[in-house]
C-alpha cells in the first residue's frame, strides 16, 4: 500500500471545474438569448448547473478536509492565501464601481446640471434607514467576533447563538435594503446617479447574500461537529468575507449615501 510521504494534498481528479466552465458558458449565452430573444431556458439551466457545481465542489472540499484529513498545516496555509487573494480581487471589483462614482460626482458635467446630486435626483436621507443599515452591519461584525471567540473556547452553545445572531442581522440588512430600493424616487436608468448608485449598492447586496449563505453553511457545519477549537478555517474564511462586506458598506455609506447626497 503506497502512502504519500509529504504533507500536501494531491486532489482526486474532479469533474467540477469542467461543469463549472460549462455552466459559465450557459449563463453567458443564456443572458444573450434572454436579452435578444426573450428566451430564458438556457439562463435557467446555467443558474441550476452553476448552483449544483458549487454545492458539489464545496461538499467535496468538506469531505477532503474534515473526513479525509487532507487539510494539514501547509495545506491550510495555502487555503488562507487563496481566500486572502480572492478577497483582494473582490476589492478591485468594487474599486471599479467606486471609481465610476467619484469620476462622475467630483466633476459633474453640464448634463447633470453642473452639480451633484444631479438635477431632479432626490437622494435617500443618509440619517434614516442607511444609518440603521450601518449599525446592523457593525453589530454583525461584533457578533461574528463573539462567535469566533466562543468557538475557540469550545463553547458550543454560545458560538451557535452568536453565529445565528450574525445571520439574522445579515437577513435584516437585506430586508431593509430591499425596502429602501422600493422607496427610491430614482431607478437604475435615471442617468449616471442611478447607474452608479444601483451598480455599487446592488453588487454589495449580492455579496451580503453570498456572505449570509456562507455563514449559514458554517452554522450547520458547527452543529454537525465539523469544527474544533483549533481547526475551523471554513469559519474563519466566512468571517473574513463578512468583515470585507461590512467594510465595503462603510465606504458605500460614506461616499454615496452621505457625501453624495
Amino acid at each position, binding site marked *: 500500500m503506497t502512502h504519500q510521504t509529504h504533507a500536501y494534498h494531491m486532489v*482526486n481528479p474532479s*469533474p467540477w471545474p469542467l461543469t463549472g466552465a*460549462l*455552466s459559465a*458558458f450557459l449563463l453567458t449565452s443564456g443572458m444573450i438569448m434572454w436579452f435578444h430573444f426573450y428566451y430564458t431556458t*438556457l439562463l435557467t439551466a*446555467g443558474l441550476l*448547473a452553476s448552483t449544483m*457545481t458549487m454545492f458539489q465542489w464545496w461538499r467535496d472540499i468538506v469531505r477532503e478536509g474534515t473526513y479525509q484529513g487532507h487539510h494539514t498545516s501547509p495545506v491550510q496555509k495555502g487555503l488562507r492565501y487563496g481566500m486572502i487573494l480572492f478577497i483582494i480581487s473582490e476589492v478591485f471589483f468594487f474599486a471599479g464601481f467606486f471609481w465610476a462614482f467619484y469620476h462622475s460626482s467630483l466633476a459633474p458635467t453640464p448634463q447633470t446640471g453642473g452639480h451633484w446630486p444631479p438635477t431632479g435626483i432626490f437622494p435617500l436621507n443618509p440619517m434614516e434607514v442607511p444609518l440603521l443599515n450601518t449599525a446592523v452591519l457593525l453589530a454583525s461584525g461584533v457578533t461574528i467576533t463573539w462567535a469566533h471567540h466562543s468557538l475557540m473556547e469550545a463553547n458550543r452553545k454560545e458560538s451557535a447563538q452568536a453565529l445565528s445572531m450574525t445571520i439574522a442581522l445579515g437577513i435584516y440588512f437585506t430586508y431593509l435594503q430591499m425596502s429602501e430600493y422600493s422607496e427610491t424616487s430614482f431607478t437604475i436608468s435615471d442617468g449616471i446617479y442611478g447607474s452608479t448608485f444601483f451598480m455599487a449598492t446592488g453588487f454589495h447586496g449580492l455579496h451580503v447574500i453570498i456572505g449570509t449563505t456562507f455563514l449559514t453553511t458554517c452554522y450547520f457545519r458547527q452543529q*454537525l461537529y465539523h469544527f474544533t477549537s483549533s481547526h475551523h478555517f471554513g469559519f474563519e474564511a466566512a468571517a473574513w468575507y463578512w468583515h470585507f462586506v461590512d467594510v465595503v458598506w462603510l465606504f458605500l455609506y460614506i461616499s454615496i449615501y452621505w457625501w453624495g447626497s
Partner: protein
Amino acid sequence: MLTQDLEVVPVPAVAIFIPGVQLSRLVVSNRAKMLRNLLALRQIGQRTISTTSRMHFKNRVAEKQKLFQEEDGIPVYLKGGIVDVILYRATMILTVGGAAYAIYHLAVASFPKKQD
C-alpha cells in the same frame, strides 16, 4: 384538553352572515379559546425544551471519516453513495447537454432568415 379547544370557528369567513350581537359573542369566545390554546402550548413547549435543545445533532464525524477513508479507489465526488452518482450524472447531463443546446441556438441566431 387541547382537542376540546380546537373547535375554533374560522371567524372571518362566517362573520359576514351573522348579525351583530351573536357575532361579538363568537369573537369573544373564540379569543378566549385561542388564549387557552396558546397558554397550553407554551406549557408543553417549556417542558420539551428542558429535555431536548432545539435541533439535536449527533456527532457522526467519526462514521463519516471511516466511510470516506475506505481504500476502495472511489473518487471523493462519488464516495458518498448513490446520491452522489445521481447528482453527478444530473449535473453532467445538464451542463454538456445545455452547452450543445446553446451552440445550436447560437448557430441558428448567426444565420437569420431573410425577410422579403
